[in-house]
């Protein structure tokens, strides 16, 4: 039954001239497509060289992971299941239809000519082929319709192209919208015309029985037949429809490299090249400085080929834009616009054919800086200094763009140009001279230990099991010092063999590096590695997630390779070992704020939650938690800069988020900077009677019986009464 008659005739009704014309146009379209790719490749070849391969084994594993993520749409689905589902529908619909067309081309133009006896487009193959393509066509069209609905009706803030750094009047991004609509609409028309061509064909062929395996076409054919199209009528209509569909398809192929459609090719590659250490381990300054000796990413030519590919990969999905704490607090930075500005600049400066509808917009072309320098020019100093390096953009990006290393690279140039605010300059000078940003004598670093009944071992003199790297804020900040002493007491209570470097320790340099002060980072890291190398210990522990990041991911490259733990990881281990015991379960509702450098950089989210469980706290999650946490605004050196120009500090937005949780009294965190930031934010928002900011250790100390619990806040509590009295007196 499924014999050679079960097929359809390719190019049926087309004259030999018509067929020739089709092949000429197809060749032209494919030529334009490859020319477009060549132009893109030439652009990447202009980028600075960067080794993205390292070891082949690691590279292949990473590439497979990236391609797997692209195939499964995991990064698109993350936190947006609607977009994830329908994007996958469009993508797989398109991919299968494309493969189908490719198979037909192989059968017709290769097998049919070279070895006609192997011609396979008939019988069972034809039936299955018809069915699969018919089904996936529907999947694609449904996906496109849902995405069109999402854009038109769902009012997603991430799809608002408004800029945070430019007045609306000076921004014209209607071209972006036209480009988006053209892309989506083109695919939709392609899909729909495909079905119409099929339906008309089936109707005119008088409904061969096996065409029921193309159900959509079959039903459409019936509808057309009812309208009088069928049998031998209107062969011109069929031809015209066929040509319409063919021209749309050939045009689309040519359009791909010059449009948003490029992401179909570029983004799987970009995901495959994604570095798992992006932002976590920043690149060292290039060994070969440019001819004029400038440092950092100052000009377009300083960006690497991978960064140029990053910029081209952006689909303007806006997930980074809505995740960014700078953009959310009114700072003139949006990771999306930074990437788009750089892309437009690269395309304009190097006369690359830019994606249609993206030319001539915004500041990239508007302020006469085209062709000038990028860091401090096209991307202004205030924009670059706004970044908290919280990594939310990199984490949210579905296509593997690495914003933070690019921003830090440009900051290196700002430091080189001396474009930094006086407060930051003072902090860096203090760090260079005294090893801390507080301007305190480095010799007083361990002064916080003075209040302890049991002194803390000097790890430079005695071998210890655990080397506790205390960090700047834990050592010098008055609010944090209390928590630091509690850490010491809890460790002592658990009979932990630990010691500190005392005045031998200096700032670990994580945020110094992210400010862009690479030389100072090297100086601090070399000093600390020198001190640590002289001490005898098995593992390092720190309360500071920033220190944790640089010691875990960056020190090894500088010769300091140790096993580094966050204290939350050590605490839960001590609980499990029975060395810490909950004497008085906390029994109240708390929320936990994931520090960016703990949750996103080091991916530690479970340990602090387990500690809270171990001490009998009832954890209520904030809407944004774990890897989706929201920054306090202090990272990347922001804590050394003025934040008074912000509309609403990220930390204030965050405590409001926590205050909306019913019955939650404690805002718990596990980062010294968070403790200071959120303590200030609770005061600034007037939530003092509602929330108390606590370090994890403060609750552990209470639960293990080491410290006396402070009264809970609340309308009737003494704490609130005292706060109210203070407010009246003040």
């Amino acid at each position, binding site marked *: 039954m499924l014999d050679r008659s079960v097929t359809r005739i390719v190019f049926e009704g087309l004259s030999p001239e018509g067929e020739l014309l089709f092949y000429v146009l197809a060749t032209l379209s494919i030529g334009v497509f490859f020319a477009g790719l060549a132009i893109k490749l030439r652009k990447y070849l202009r980028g600075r060289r960067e080794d993205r391969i390292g070891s082949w084994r690691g590279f292949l594993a990473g590439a497979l992971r990236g391609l797997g993520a692209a195939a499964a749409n995991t990064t698109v689905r993350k936190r947006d299941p609607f977009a994830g589902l329908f994007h996958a529908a469009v993508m797989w619909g398109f991919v299968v239809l494309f493969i189908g067309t490719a198979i037909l081309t192989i059968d017709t133009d290769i097998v049919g000519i070279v070895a006609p006896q192997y011609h396979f487009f008939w019988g069972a193959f034809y039936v299955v082929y018809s069915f699969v393509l018919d089904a996936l066509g529907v999947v694609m069209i449904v996906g496109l319709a849902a995405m069109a609905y999402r854009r038109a009706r769902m009012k997603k803030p991430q799809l608002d192209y408004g800029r945070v750094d430019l007045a609306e009047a000076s921004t014209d991004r209607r071209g972006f919208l036209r480009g988006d609509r053209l892309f989506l609409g083109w695919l939709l028309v392609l899909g729909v015309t495909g079905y119409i061509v099929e339906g008309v064909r089936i109707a005119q062929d008088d409904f061969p029985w096996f065409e029921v395996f193309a159900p959509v076409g079959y039903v459409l054919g019936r509808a057309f037949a009812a309208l009088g199209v069928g049998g031998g009528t209107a062969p011109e209509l069929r031809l015209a429809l066929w040509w319409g569909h063919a021209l749309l398809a050939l045009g689309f192929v040519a359009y791909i490299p010059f449009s948003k459609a490029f992401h179909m090719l570029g983004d799987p590659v970009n995901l495959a090249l994604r570095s798992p250490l992006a932002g976590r381990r920043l690149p060292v300054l290039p060994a070969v400085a440019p001819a004029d000796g400038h*440092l950092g990413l100052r000009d377009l030519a300083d960006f690497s080929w991978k960064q140029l590919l990053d910029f081209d990969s952006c689909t303007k999905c806006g997930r980074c834009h809505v995740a960014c704490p700078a953009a959310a607090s009114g700072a003139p930075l949006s990771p999306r616009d930074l990437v788009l500005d750089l892309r437009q600049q690269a395309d304009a400066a190097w006369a690359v054919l830019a994606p249609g509808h993206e030319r001539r917009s915004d500041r990239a072309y508007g302020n006469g800086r085209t062709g000038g320098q990028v860091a401090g020019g096209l991307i202004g100093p205030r924009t670059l200094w706004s970044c908290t390096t919280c990594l939310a953009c990199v984490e949210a990006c579905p296509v593997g763009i690495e914003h933070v290393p690019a921003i830090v690279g440009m900051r290196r140039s700002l430091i080189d140009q001396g474009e930094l605010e006086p407060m930051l300059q003072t902090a860096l000078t203090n760090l260079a001279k005294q090893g801390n940003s507080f301007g*305190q004598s480095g010799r007083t670093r361990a002064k916080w230990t003075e209040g302890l009944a049991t002194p803390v071992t000097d790890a430079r003199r005695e071998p210890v099991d655990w080397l506790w790297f205390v960090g700047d804020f834990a050592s010098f900040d008055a609010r944090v010092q209390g928590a630091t002493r509690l850490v010491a007491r809890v460790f002592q209570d658990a009979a932990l063999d630990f010691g500190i470097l005392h005045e031998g320790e200096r700032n670990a340099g994580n945020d110094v590096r992210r400010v862009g002060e690479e030389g100072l980072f090297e100086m601090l890291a070399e000093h600390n590695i020198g001190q640590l190398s002289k001490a005898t210990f098995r593992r390092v522990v720190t309360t500071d997630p920033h220190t944790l990041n640089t010691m875990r991911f960056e020190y090894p490259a500088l010769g300091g390779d140790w096993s580094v733990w966050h204290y939350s990881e050590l605490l839960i281990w001590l609980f499990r070992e029975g060395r810490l015991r909950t004497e008085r379960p906390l029994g109240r509702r708390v929320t936990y704020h994931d520090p960016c450098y703990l949750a996103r950089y080091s991916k530690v989210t479970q340990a602090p939650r387990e500690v809270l469980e171990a001490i009998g706290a009832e954890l209520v999650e904030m809407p944004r938690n774990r890897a989706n946490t929201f920054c306090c605004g202090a990272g990347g050196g922001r804590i050394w800069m003025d934040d008074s120009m912000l509309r609403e500090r990220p930390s204030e937005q965050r405590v409001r988020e926590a205050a909306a949780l019913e019955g939650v009294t404690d805002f718990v965190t596990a980062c010294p900077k968070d403790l200071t930031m959120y303590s200030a934010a609770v005061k600034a928002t007037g939530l003092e009677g509602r929330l108390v900011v606590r370090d994890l250790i403060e609750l552990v100390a209470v639960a293990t019986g080491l410290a006396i619990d402070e009264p809970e806040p609340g309308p009737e509590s003494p704490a609130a009464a005292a706060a109210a009295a203070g407010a009246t007196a003040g």
Partner: protein
Amino acid sequence: MELAVLLKQVPDLAEELEIDASGTDLEREWMTLVTNEFDDYALEEALQLRDEAGGSVTCLALDTGSADELLATCLAKGADRAIKVGSFERQPDSHTAARAFATALGRVPHDLVLTGVQAIDDLDGQVGPLVAAELDLPHVSVVTHIAIGPGGRAATVNQEYAGGVVAELEVDLPAVLGVQTSRVTPRYAPVSRVRQLMKTAEMGHVEAPTDGGSGLVVEAMALPQTGAGAEMLGGGADAVADRLVAILRERGLLKA
């Protein structure tokens, strides 16, 4: 315009200062040194003037063992040349320093010599005037807003007096100026550059006499005695007044 800047380092006040065993000097063994703030202003003014009028900036520091870092920082900020002067075990008194600098300046072309108006570790503000005297050049101290006149023959400078009165002075060049502050915050020297320059930069060296002698001898140095602390009087005006009267009475300063 050939600009020369005279600089030195002073103790970092972040440290707790200690007196050494002799009781006449600071304990310098572990001391952290920073560039004298006013010298930093002088350098910034020099760099600004060079960027306006062209020419070059030469930085001079007495070679006391730590001059390399100081001068590398100057170069990192954009100075054109760095010269170490003489050879000293420690920072000498102002007369000796001025004589050494004057000797060095005899071999360094200069249209304008800038130095910080004073330093926190001697507070005599003498180096500028003494250098000027040695070189027989005009001198103005405590200046701001330096502007080079046409042809580079003279400069106008501001001196700010008490009560906010500002005088504008014109001084013939070459001259020596003691700088009070710079028009902008002194620029930052990226540590990458400083470190690179400490390894690679070629610094000049000029021999200079190491004796000059101010005729002054430090007989003793001491930290201020810490008092027992202050009692803060709080509450309403009446309560404060009552407590005040009570205290005065306790001390026998009030009768009846």
